[in-house]
């Protein structure tokens, strides 16, 4: 692989992993929020 291809791969990994993290955080955060809402709505 040429240096440019390594750099493109590195940049793609950074970009995709960041997107993946944002997506995962958003989904898991939503699930956690649902649990919190359920806990307080049902039991309070």
């Amino acid at each position, binding site marked *: 692989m040429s*240096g440019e*291809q390594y750099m493109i791969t590195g*940049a*793609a990994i950074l970009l995709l*992993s960041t997107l993946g993290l944002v997506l*995962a955080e958003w989904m898991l955060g939503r699930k956690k929020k649902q*649990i919190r809402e359920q806990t*307080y709505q049902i*039991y*309070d």
Partner: protein
Amino acid sequence: MIQDGEILDGMYQIIREIGRGGTGIIYLAYHLRLQKRVVVKKIKDHFAGQINGRAEVDILKRLHHSYLPQVYDFLVVGTSIYTVMEYVEGQDLQQYLDQGYHFPEQVIRQWLIQLCEVLEYLHTQNPPILHSDIKPSNIMITSQGNVCLIDFNISLDGEVSKDIQGVSPWFAAPEQYQKAQDILNGRKNTQLLDARMDIYSLGAVFYTVMTGQLPSPDREQYGDILSMEIPYSDGLRAVVAKALRKKRTARFQTARQMKKALSDVSRMDPLYKGYTAAQAGSVFAWILCVVAGVLLLYYGNWQNSVEKWQQAYRQLYVSAENQEETDIISQATEILNSRTYKGYLGKHDDKKAGVLRLLGESYFRQENFEEAASCYGEAWELMPKDGGLCRDYTVALVRSGQIGKARRIMESADGLRNLSDGERLLIQAEISRMAEDDEHALEELGELFERESDRELLISGYLLEASIYDGREEYGNAVASLEAARELDGSKEVLRHMGQSAVKAASSESRKVNENAWLQKALACYQSLNGNGSPSYEDRLNLALVERAMGKYKDSNTHLNEMNQVYNEDYVVPMWMCYNYLDLAKEQGGYENILEELKFRFQDGMHRYRSFGKTDPDMEALAEIMKELEE
């Protein structure tokens, strides 16, 4: 036994007995001076012996908390010991449970948080105070709906807890219960009890409140409460379950921790915890990706600079092969100053020295010996074991007039180590030549040719010899030296020297008889230079001028015309074309067929000459001729 109505210490009139605990009997009494109800607790005789005097009573009296009764007094009447405390109105939790009450999650959370606050307060006293008997009957529910933790005894800190107070088998922590059993059975138990004992008891109380069942002292309750069909959130169950762990290290370590968990019980939900773990996992995976990405970027950048370096060096090398001096200087300077290659060159001294050497050679060929010496010197510093660099540096120093410095290098340890006898002879010849002692220089070179077999050194020697002969206007000898050099090296440098010397020989008065032969030799050199690779501007122009000198005006113009298409801003090319046309006209006796072309080339050349901005006598002379021709 105290009778109802009895007055203790002249101050407290007993109203009635209201309860019995593990450590004493509790009476409702009336404070005769303050005229309010108080609680008087008679410490059982067995425990009275453990009280460490007033100091500990003072500690209890100093305690002030919203969810604790205030301790007023401490009495010793006869052999009995009493504590007098604030009377809290309301029912205790046990009474509510006995009446079959079920409490909603919000209320349970509120009480648990209040009790955690109390425990945090007690446990952070100096010395820490452990309640050690938390059970439903010791938790009063006030008329405001808040809790009040009662029946805490004279201090039970870590030191005193060597002796156990009365324990409740269902609510006592396993370690506390075990200790009580050991004491009762006369077994030794050195385990110190701590705040986590109270945390277990708190969990056990609320296990009962939430499930209606008493926790078993012998079993782990953790799984039970999580799987039961009870109307409480998984988070709250998880908090109670964690407080109830048999292993102390698995429980909340402090009341503050438990209170924090209760402030958002959903965080204790196993599913919620799973999502939190997944979040941490995704962050960890992201960090790994970032590290990998950054490493790839870094490596790619490095690889890129290596590739660019290789490409730039290849170009420089091609330029050096063709001796395209302007290109060599611009490319080498760019390589040396570029940030792209800085890191790479910083780690590869040999590569940097290679570029400096090519740059130095270029300056040397252009007779800019000072710059050449500077480049060679820098390169030699990077590669101090390179004898060739030492030689070239010293020669460049000599040529730039720094003979003293050159001598010092020759005589230095580095010079002695790096320079062979042949190289020293060459440098000596250079020094002699600079001193205008040509005879000595030629002698030294003769010695060099006899003794030395190194090709590169011999070529340098022959070139020096040729330049000495050139200086003495012995062009034939110069060409002979260059022919000897050419046998060893057919490089453009040698060919150029030879072409120049042959032209000089042809124009020399003494050699006029052989003019055509010398011009033929020069022509052969320039044809050879133009036939290989990409010839330089000078090589092409010299070929055309040699052809012109030989009277081959048409051939000369053919080559100049080819040049004109490439160097379309240069006035010199059309100028020489005009001279060729003029000589051709002289030769054929008129301007037939060439006048239009001559005028066009002249106008083109003049146009370029004006933008050139400098004066050229050849062009001025041409302008005069053309003016006369016009007239």
